[in-house]
């Protein structure tokens, strides 16, 4: 929940920038890059940053 609000806040601050607004309005097709980035992100099956922290006590070479 807190993370979601923080992420929304960060995106708000970025989208509010004049340069970003101008680019998005003049080149609406650039939204395609955002969609593409989302799709790539959704296919990611590696570790999350939080997991590097979470599993820090697991010794190497086991398993």
């Amino acid at each position, binding site marked *: 929940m807190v993370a979601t609000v923080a992420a929304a806040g960060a995106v708000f601050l970025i989208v509010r920038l004049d340069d970003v607004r101008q680019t998005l309005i003049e080149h609406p097709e650039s939204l395609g890059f955002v969609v593409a980035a989302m799709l790539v992100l959704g*296919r*990611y*099956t*590696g*570790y*999350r940053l939080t*997991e*590097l*922290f*979470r*599993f*820090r*006590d*697991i*010794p*190497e*070479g*086991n*398993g």
Partner: protein
Amino acid sequence: MRWLFSYRRLMASGVLGMNARNAGAILEHNPRALYPIVDDKLQFLKLCRRVGVPTPSVYAVFARHGQLRHLDATLLAAPDCVIKPARGSSGRGVMVLTGVAPDGYFRHNGSIATADDLRRHLSDILSGLYSLGGRPDQAIVQQRLRTHPAFQRISYRGTPDVRVLVYRGEPAMAMLRLPTLDSSGRANLHQGGVGVGVDLESGRTTCAVWRGRALRRHPDTGEPISDRAVPDWRAVLAAARTVARATGLGYVGVDVVPDIAGPVVLEANARPGLAIQSANGMGLRKVMERIDRQMRNAECEMRNE
């Protein structure tokens, strides 16, 4: 800050991440249509009975608010019981009663719940306060299992259970879950329980994890946790295997309580967490790959015959 650069190390130890679990294990091996069998405890209990695996006896099921007027009669007949939502998750909404008190019922932590408190709690359960997705639910009044003497000194006011992770019908990893003062009698790790790795071959405990960190002694009793034998280990694994195969799920966590009379299956989970890796100090991926190989070899042999 060394953890920031541990990506390769985690890969080398075969740790399964959340994304890999969702995309590889759950999506591939757990068909959506089978979820209700484990998400609804009443359906799951029926399944266990069908395959002959012991479960705690059910004293009563409440489905409608109107039925709550019989609650007192039910509890007076069986005041040593557990009240839980049929479709709850991670131990939420579970209330443990141990006996009749002068003005209500004793809870496992020694406090007293009045008949009104309990009616309100069941009413909350029926309204779906603790159910998955907040949908209306049913409340189950169930037999309370006792702590096995083997775990008496390493659990705090609650019943420890063994979570067996079964991958494609074969036990892949197991952990003993111990209740603590923090977890208020529940053994779920999210609630503050201790997870203790159990060696699949010997059934003896290895290392432990609590609140994300490695641990050597029980936080409340101070007793060392490692190298203890889980009673009836073979039977625990057999029960988990039977139940997992009956559900049809290929990546499922089965919770088994080693009762004095033998293992009793509590519930199963179609989205078992990853903390079992921390408790065992090893990754899941290599175990799963080994089981995959065994399956492939077995298939080849069948074709050759």
